[in-house]
């Protein structure tokens, strides 16, 4: 349902999952902090996790679409 042979959700999902993992792990070990609404946050950790979640959601969508097509 996503068009040609390659479902676009695979490259999007895998890329963002990979970037999310790398940035999140880096965030776990770095002390860099950003100021948001007068609070100190580890932006690598939080935004890396958000990118990872987005990537995984895309991969799940691609898997479900693949199953639907096969059935």
């Amino acid at each position, binding site marked *: 349902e996503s068009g040609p042979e390659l479902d676009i959700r695979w490259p999007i999902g895998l*890329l963002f999952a990979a970037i999310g993992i790398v940035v999140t792990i*880096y965030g776990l070990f*770095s002390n860099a*902090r950003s100021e*948001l609404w007068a609070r100190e946050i580890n932006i690598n950790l939080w935004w890396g996790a958000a990118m990872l979640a987005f990537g995984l959601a895309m991969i799940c969508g691609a898997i479900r679409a693949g199953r639907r097509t096969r059935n």
Partner: protein
Amino acid sequence: MHLEWIDYAVIALYCAFVLGVGFALKKSMRTSLDFFLSGRRIPAWITGLAFISANLGALEVMGMAASGAKYGMLTSHFYWLGAIPAMIFVGLCMMPFYYGSRARSVPEYLRLRFDEKTRAFNALTFAVMTILASGINLYAMALVFKLMLGWSIHATILLSAIVVLIYTFFGGLTSSIYNEVLQFFLIVFGILPLAVLTVTKAGGWSGLEARMPPGFTHMWSNLGQATANPMGVDWFQLVAGLGFVLSFGYWCTDFLVVQRALAARDMTAAQKTPLIAALPKMFIPFLVIVPGMAAWVLLPKAAFLVQGKIDYNMALPLLLAHYYPPGMLGVGITALLASFMSGMAGNVTAFNTVWTYDIYHSYIRRDATDAHYLQMGKIATVGGVLLSVAAAYVALSFHNIMDYLQLIFSFVNAPLFATFLLGMFWKRTTPNGAFYGLASGTAAAALHYFATLHGLFIYRSEMAANFDRAIYAWAVCFFVTIGVSVFTKPRSEAELGGLVYSLTKKQSYEHLRWIRRPATLAVIVGMVAIVLNWIYR
């Protein structure tokens, strides 16, 4: 600005995926239609995101952030007035003719509707323009990364050209579209945290209102006179010049964006393509313009000094350097790199289509096999990339030549929408009317430019002169086309079925629920745009 290993790791991941997409799509490229138009089987949500991303290059992202710092919220007119109405119009009113005529390109539509000479004029100017745009994009990328990171200009030009060449050569338009969608999400994930961090740091919207000059946070209230706003334009120039002539001329006739809709899987998907694109397009100002305004508030003016003059073009990279730690900096830089590369790829894929279908197939070799045209498309891709690299080096060595070339092509673009409007909605428009209207509109734009240069017209800003020039060119083209058409022979009605409004069977949407119809989406988009204009008036 200095990058850490983590930043280079993110950039390397992106490059690996981009090349992977090209290789993965290689086996799907069996026919010329697969290569040039993705086999017309892409779903609307993908073509919609590609439609907006084709226009969301790094020059746009950085330029709009710079304009945000220079003009404030007035810059949002380029979106809420200068894009959304035209995107609604092309989706609802023009796509039935583009897609329904089965034309493979915009110049081919002109041949079907008018004649060979109008198509040749449009195809040749478009092919040269895309190469220029691609080369300037490549040059700008090299310059930005040289200024930001100290990267070698030659290495940046050659490496990025090689990456773009590989994925467009193997994957054609599909590869370009897929990477544009990747780029869209990278821009969102790479720039959104920056927007939140900088705007909250500036004290939110109320902080921006308090700290920026009066009028910088309003869109309409200072447009009564050109002297009352930093753009130096009045409401008529803005509405008629930007909101009508220039925006409709770009969004409705530029093959670079229309090509994305032609790749859609059916008529409804093609119509929805610009409408789906319009939804995220409306919120791009919050991603790039508002951070540009925050840069004006947060960064010292000395940060914008270039050779003793204030230059806001580096506002976004400066914010990246100030507010992102290593890691997120890599994501932000990758977003810029992605938008530079997909901007170039979009131009190259539009060039190879127009070259193969509208020039090679029409004038050089008419009766070859489909496999031959597929091969020619791949050769044109290599040629397009090589010409882009050459254009980048011309821009690097002779800035003025590129400025003049762009100026000349702006003369050609301004009147184009009048030709399409009359061609699609007035069956009496003749081939000669279209050609001479287009030629006289182009001449009017050139005359206006030279008259302004010699002081016959005085404007408060170059932008005001550009808007007025577009209005003159469009009006001359419109009336000359009508005048010549009245005295020349139109094409027979039998030839114009599917090409003109009154001679085309109306599309039925009975099979779709009301919520899924293009008109419903258009109403939603239009209402959101009106609300945004009202809130920031």
